[in-house]
């Protein structure tokens, strides 16, 4: 991946989705871009093994409340994306959280316990605008070269739930993170598209007409998806099991 391209992508996300993003987003993206550049310099000098950026769960990329779905969901993204020498990242760890503070779902009488009620009314709680996480998605890249799990573990996969934080008061049972659903490789530009298309339907219609945005989309679809789907197609045409194939590491594929 070209470092300048990656930097520009982060800064452009702030522009493409300006009207959908929270006021904090511009600086979050600016700092991720700065970290990307600095880490690339350190990587080139041989000081660190990978370069890239992180957006942390405490300071996520936050979207404005969505009008879709009736519960005023608020989406945020946090992630860690790292490269070495190739276009595809060697670390892809992206989470989408859907928050809500809607009175019908934030506390469910008879289901949620006293602790949840206390936390919801606690001013000192981590997230300043409170509410709780009602849905949580994890787009992950399994590093089979770092040891294989006994479980079904597609290389690129999507999980519901995942490693939730205490302050999220997440609906999903803690520590329960299967099934792992095979999914295409992802990064932040493509993740933001997914959020916009789902949660900001009207605005997305106008964003996707932008020529610059379409240029970025072409680039990321080419780099992240083209080879992935060609490989999927090949396996299906060969009448092999796609799901089993996607669990293999790239090294074992060539065996």
């Amino acid at each position: 991946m070209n470092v300048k391209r990656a930097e520009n992508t982060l800064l452009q996300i702030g522009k493409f989705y300006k009207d959908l993003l929270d006021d904090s987003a511009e600086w979050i993206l600016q700092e991720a871009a700065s970290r990307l550049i600095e880490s690339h310099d350190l990587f080139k000098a041989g000081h660190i093994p990978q370069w890239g950026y992180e957006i942390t769960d405490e300071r996520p990329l936050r979207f404005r409340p969505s009008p879709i779905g009736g519960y005023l969901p608020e989406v945020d993204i946090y992630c860690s994306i790292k490269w070495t020498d190739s276009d595809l990242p060697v670390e892809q760890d992206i989470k989408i959280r859907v928050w809500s503070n809607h009175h019908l779902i934030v506390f469910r009488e008879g289901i949620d316990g006293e602790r949840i009620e206390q936390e919801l009314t606690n001013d000192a709680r981590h997230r300043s605008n409170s509410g709780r996480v009602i849905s949580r998605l994890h787009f992950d890249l399994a590093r089979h070269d770092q040891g294989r799990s006994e479980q079904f573990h597609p290389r690129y996969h999507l999980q519901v739930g995942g490693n939730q934080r205490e302050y999220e008061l997440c609906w999903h049972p803690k520590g329960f993170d299967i099934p792992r659903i095979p999914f295409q490789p992802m990064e932040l530009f493509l993740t933001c598209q997914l959020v916009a298309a789902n949660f900001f339907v009207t605005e997305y219609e106008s964003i996707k007409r932008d020529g610059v945005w379409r240029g970025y989309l072409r680039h990321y679809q080419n780099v992240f998806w083209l080879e992935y789907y060609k490989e999927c197609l090949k396996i299906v045409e060969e009448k092999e099991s796609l799901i089993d194939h996607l669990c293999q590491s790239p090294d074992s594929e060539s065996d």
Partner: protein
Amino acid sequence: MKRVAYIDDEKDERTASRLVRKLNHPGEFECVAIYPPSEISEFPPGYDAYLLDLDLTAQFEGQHVSYHGSTLAAEIRLRYQTCPLILVTRDTVINRSSWWKQMLQTSIDVDLVLFKEQINDRPDEARAKILSLIDGFQALESIQDAGWGKVLELLGAEEYAADLRVANQPVIGNNWNIPQVARWIREVLLCFPGILYDERYAAARLGIDLSAFQTQPVFDFFAPALYHGPFNENNNYWWCKKLLGLANRLMLSHDLKRTVADHFIDAFRIETGIELSPSVCIWDRTSPADRVCYVLKSPVKLENSIPYYPDNRPAIMDEARVSFTAIRTSPDFDKTLVDENSLELVMEMWD
């Protein structure tokens, strides 16, 4: 040695002579009082800058002229684009009508408006402003026949060319002129935080207190981000991207992953053993506060402030914010400068 002409229709001790004497600084700055020429085109050439009294129409030595200092400024500008022009007046004169003040302050023929009270009370500050203008104009003059790339080089901004392109830079194709570029540097680039930060904005962005930012170890650490271009009037400015880059690099080396405002302070402590004070939000007294309240000039958290629109800054610059404290307590807060979404919150806070 800089030589400056002060053109005024009064040379008595009450006005021009006294101001000239205050401004003069032997060996560094020579100011000479001159009557306005009867023919506007016959102004005395060869000075490094001109101070022009706004009202030149009084009788002097049996004659008077029929033009204002601003008119003379237009004539000089047309002939010498390389020379800074400073209008001198009284606060009470220029404030007679708001449109007049606004028009003079934004006129391309006037680079600076200085008040007589200001020269009288703080001559060193006034002289420093004039000298900064002269130095800046002369620096631009030295590259006046070169393309825009040379201007970026002079600013030390080659790597920020893309940001500057969307910061209303006064260049058409490769053509630019000295007065417009001088104004842009002073009134856009150095004036609005975003591409460059002054010490107040830099400190807040790093999540540290202004006094901590002013300490020598912090100053030294961020020295590679200092702005060395013209018109800084002896104030320090830092390139925002470079400032963040230096902070992020230190944080990376200590595996600290949150934002600069959250973690620079920790990285600096680990690296140097020096404990810096965090920036404290003017509204809820918590840290770190990484924004600056436009009205109170104090650190404030994003969530304890709302967007404010006091000027026409380019979109690439940081958005101005006003703190809840200013909304509640400051007579300088103007509710007409907030957007429709925030106005409701303002009204609630005032109830």
